[in-house]
C-alpha cells in the first residue's frame, strides 16, 4: 500500500556506510600474498551470514589463497573449537563471521599465541582484532525507520528482536537510542524470538500482535531484525490480509523480494555480500602484505525499497540465485 514508507533510496550517506568502491579505497592496494585462511562461519541456516562466508571464500580463492570454512551452527563454543583447529593447522589468517570478540576469547588467545591475525566480518573494530568489516549496519534502516515514525505519526510498533545475536543486539540498541532521542511517544511491544523456530515464532507473535492492534485503531509499524523474522511477519500479515503495517528490516534475500515489491517490507538494507567478501579479503591481504595496522571498515550497503528494488536486482542478479 502507498502508506508504506517512501524513504530516499540510493546509496546511503557517509555515516551509514561506504559504497564498495569507497570501502575498497580505504584499504591499501592488495599485495600478492598466499597461504591458507581459516574462516569460522556463523550458521549455514542464516542466509546472510552464509553469503558473507561464501563471498569472502570466493574472493580469497580468486586471489590465490587456500580457504577452509566450517559451520559452528551458531554455537560459540564450537566456533572457538573450529578456530583452535585452524590455529593447529597454522593458517596464515583467521576470519570470523558474525561472532564478535567477546564470544571468541579462547580463539583470540590461541591465535595471539601463534601470532595469527584474526579478522572479524560483522562487528565494529575492537582492540585485539587485526581488522573488521562492520556489517551490523545499525544506522541506515533505523534512521529511515525513525523518520517514518515521525512523518506518519505512528502510535505503536512491534519489534522482533534476537538479542543473543550481536548484529541484532546492536541494531536494537541503536533503535532504542534513536527512539529516546527523537522524543516520539510510540508504544513499543518487543518480542524475542528463539532460534531455531524463528520463523514460526515471529509469525505467531506478529499475528497475535496484529489481533491486538486492529486496522484503524492506530498507526503501526514493525521492526524486524533480519530476513527470517521478516518472513514470519510477512506471513502473518498475509494470513490476516492486513496491508497497513509496513516492515523495516535488514538483509535482502530472495525470500522477501515479493514483500518488498508489494511494499509490505517498506525498507530493507542490502548488504553487498560480494563487496563485503572483497573487503574482508583486502583487509587480510593488506595485513599479510605488511600493513599490520588494525583497520575497521563499514560494510558496503544500500537501502532497498519497492522503488529501487528492480535496479538493485538488475545490478546484483546473485540475490535471486
Amino acid at each position: 500500500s502507498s502508506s508504506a514508507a517512501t524513504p530516499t533510496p540510493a546509496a546511503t550517506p557517509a555515516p551509514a556506510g561506504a559504497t564498495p568502491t569507497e570501502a575498497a579505497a580505504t584499504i591499501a592496494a592488495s599485495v600478492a600474498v598466499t597461504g591458507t585462511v581459516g574462516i569460522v562461519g556463523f550458521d549455514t541456516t542464516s542466509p546472510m551470514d552464509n553469503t558473507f562466508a561464501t563471498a569472502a571464500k570466493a574472493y580469497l580463492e580468486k586471489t590465490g589463497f587456500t580457504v577452509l570454512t566450517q559451520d559452528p551452527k551458531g554455537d560459540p563454543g564450537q566456533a572457538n573449537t573450529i578456530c583452535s583447529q585452524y590455529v593447529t593447522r597454522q593458517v596464515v589468517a583467521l576470519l570470523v563471521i558474525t561472532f564478535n570478540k567477546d564470544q571468541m576469547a579462547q580463539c583470540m588467545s590461541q591465535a595471539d599465541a601463534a601470532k595469527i591475525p584474526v579478522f572479524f566480518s560483522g562487528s565494529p573494530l575492537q582492540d585485539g582484532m587485526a581488522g573488521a568489516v562492520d556489517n551490523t549496519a545499525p544506522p541506515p534502516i533505523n534512521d529511515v525507520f525513525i523518520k517514518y515514525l515521525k512523518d506518519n505519526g505512528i502510535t505503536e510498533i512491534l519489534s522482533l528482536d534476537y538479542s543473543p545475536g550481536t548484529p541484532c543486539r546492536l541494531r536494537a540498541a541503536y533503535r532504542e537510542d534513536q527512539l529516546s532521542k527523537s522524543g516520539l511517544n510510540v508504544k513499543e511491544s518487543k518480542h524475542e524470538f528463539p532460534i531455531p523456530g524463528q520463523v514460526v515464532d515471529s509469525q505467531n507473535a506478529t499475528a497475535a500482535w496484529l489481533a491486538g492492534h486492529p486496522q484503524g485503531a492506530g498507526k503501526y509499524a514493525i521492526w524486524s531484525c533480519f530476513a527470517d523474522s521478516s518472513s514470519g511477519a510477512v506471513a502473518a500479515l498475509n494470513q490476516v490480509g492486513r496491508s497497513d503495517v509496513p516492515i523495516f528490516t535488514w538483509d535482502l534475500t530472495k525470500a522477501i523480494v515479493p514483500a518488498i515489491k508489494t511494499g509490505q517490507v517498506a525498507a530493507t538494507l542490502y548488504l553487498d555480500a560480494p563487496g563485503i567478501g572483497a573487503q574482508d579479503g583486502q583487509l587480510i591481504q593488506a595485513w599479510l602484505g605488511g600493513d599490520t595496522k588494525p583497520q575497521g571498515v563499514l560494510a558496503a550497503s544500500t537501502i532497498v525499497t519497492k522503488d529501487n528494488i528492480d535496479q538493485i536486482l538488475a545490478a546484483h542478479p546473485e540475490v535471486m540465485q
Partner: protein
Amino acid sequence: MQNVAPALGARQTRIRSFGQSVTLVIGKYGAIMVLALLFAWFSVAAKYFLTWDNSVQILNQAALSAISACGLTLVLASNQFDLSVGNTASLSGIVVAMLMINGVPIPIAIAAALGVGVAIGLCNSFLVAYLKVNALVATLGVGSAAVGVNYFLSGGAAQPFAFAAPAFNQISIGNWLGIPKDVYYMVAIVVVLWALLNRTVLGRNVQAVGGNAEAARLAGVGTMSVTSAAFIICSLCASVTGILLASVVGSGQPTGGDGYTMTAFAAAFLGTAVLREGQFHIVGTVVGVLTVAVGFNGLTLIGVPSYVQFFFQGVLLIAAVSFSTVARQHSKAS
C-alpha cells in the same frame, strides 16, 4: 458399566470419601480447568482477546502444531519416541518449495514432500521396529541425517516459491466461511487420528504395544508392523505440517519446522494430564496445543516482556501436569 462379576465382587462394599471424589475430578479435569482459567483470565486482562478474529487466530496458530503433535501422539502411545518430527517438517517444506521452484507442478511437489515423510517414517520404523534400536537414538540420528539432506538441497538458504508457484500460497492462506483454511485441515486430521487411535484395530494394537509389547506379541499382535505404522503416520503428519508451513510463510525454510519437535512433545505431555490416567491420547494432545497457543497469544496481547513468555511456558507445563498427577495420586491413595 454392566457385567459386574457375581457373588464375591458384589459383597465388597464401596465407599468413597468426599475429598477423594473432589481430587478425582481435579485429576480428570485439572488440565482442562487450567485452560479454562487461562481463557477466563485473558478475556478480562487482554483487550481484543475475546474477539472473533483473535479466537480464530488462536486456532490458526494451533493448527500446525496440532497436526504434528497428534501424529507424535501415536508414536508416544506405542511407547516409542520420535525426535525427528521437526527435521522432517523442515525437510518436507524445503523439498516442496524447491521442486516447485524447479517447475514441478504443485500436486506432484506435494506428493513428493509427503513421500519424504513416508521415507523418514520408514527409516525410523526399520531401525526401531526391526533392528530394535532404541527409538531416541534412532530418531535423533535419522533427524540429523535429514538435516544433512536438507542443507545439501537448500544450502541452508530459504527457498521462496512466490514467482514459481504463487498459487501454492492459497493452500493455507485465506479463509473459508471466515475460518482460516489451516483450521479445517487441523480438524480433519485430528478427527481421523482420533478415530484411528481409539476406534480401529490398528489403534487398539498401538495402545496394546504401548502398554506391554511382550504381552501384546504373545497375544498375537504383530508388534513390528504396528510400531512401523505409528512411526510412518507420525512422519507423514510432520511433513504435512512442513508443507503447510511453507505455504504460510511463502518459502521453504531450512530450519522453519525444527521448533515443532519440542512444541509437539510439550503438547502431548500436557495432554497426558487430560481426562485419562497419564496416557497419551489425541484429545489430550489437542487440549495441550490449545493451552500453549492460548497462553502465547494472550501474553503477546497483554504485551509482557519475552522472558515472561519463556517462564510462563515452563510453569504452565509443570503446573498443568503435576496438578493432575498429584490429584490422581491422592484420589487413589487411601
